[in-house]
């Protein structure tokens, strides 16, 4: 299995409901939702559903403001010791405006079918 590289950009809609509570008068996208975005991007690209199995070296470096354009760059390494449906995903989330880093980290994703089998 070869490594997979994915690049995807998102504009953060300023009308998202989450901004009402995070935070009133000073809206910032919750950093953890970048992790959810990483998972969703991989799921869309590979046409599979995933659970997050692990997170490491996760750093939030600057706030993502409403209307920001977030460019995700992902490197997926299939974990051969387990199953091709488990990926070690290194990611960087850039501010497309000036190429500065919003966040970076590493996420282990398990395909949902594999997770369900383990739980059974």
């Amino acid at each position: 299995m070869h490594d997979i590289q994915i690049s995807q950009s998102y504009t953060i809609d300023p009308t998202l409901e989450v901004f009402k509570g995070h935070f009133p008068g000073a809206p910032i996208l919750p950093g953890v939702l970048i992790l959810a975005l990483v998972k969703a991007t991989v799921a869309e690209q590979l046409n599979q559903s995933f659970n997050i199995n692990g997170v490491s070296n996760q750093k939030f470096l600057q706030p993502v403001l409403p209307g920001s354009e977030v460019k995700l760059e992902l490197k997926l390494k299939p974990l051969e010791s387990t199953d091709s449906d488990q990926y070690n995903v290194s990611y960087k989330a850039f501010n497309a405006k000036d190429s500065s880093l919003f966040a970076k980290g590493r996420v282990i994703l398990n395909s949902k079918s594999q997770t369900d089998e383990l739980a059974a």
Partner: protein
Amino acid sequence: MLTQAQIKQIIPHRAPFLLIDKVRLGDSGLNGTAEFDLNQCQPFWQAGPLNELMSPTEQKEALLLEAAAQSFGVIVGASTEHSEHDDSLEHDDSVQHLLLGFDNVSFNNWQQQQTCIELNISHQGTFGQMFRAKFDATCNDQLIASGLISVMQGVKEG
């Protein structure tokens, strides 16, 4: 035991993104326990590309991590902004707690029906204004996630 009303005096999070209901401060140090109900997380994606990609239930791991961050923010805020005998919990708006990151997080076959979660937070170290803690998330005494969390206490400019 801090209620949500008291929690709101310590951290700036509000509905629909105030995820924790109660926090019990530990007897000593920056430790404590919080309660988090995934079912009570209101859907907060209204529109836009994010909504097309995932439903709120698809974000459960992120929400649990956020709940851990909010819990630790409350514990740090309650301990550093207020004295032991200060029951007012009046929030100092100039002080804020920023989520710096996570490490060594693992999820252990978290099942869909496991929605009522207890978060145990134990302080690991303080480095200047940075605070680090270990969290364990359990449901019915079954460990569903654990990891390290770092927050920084800062003072707003202006």
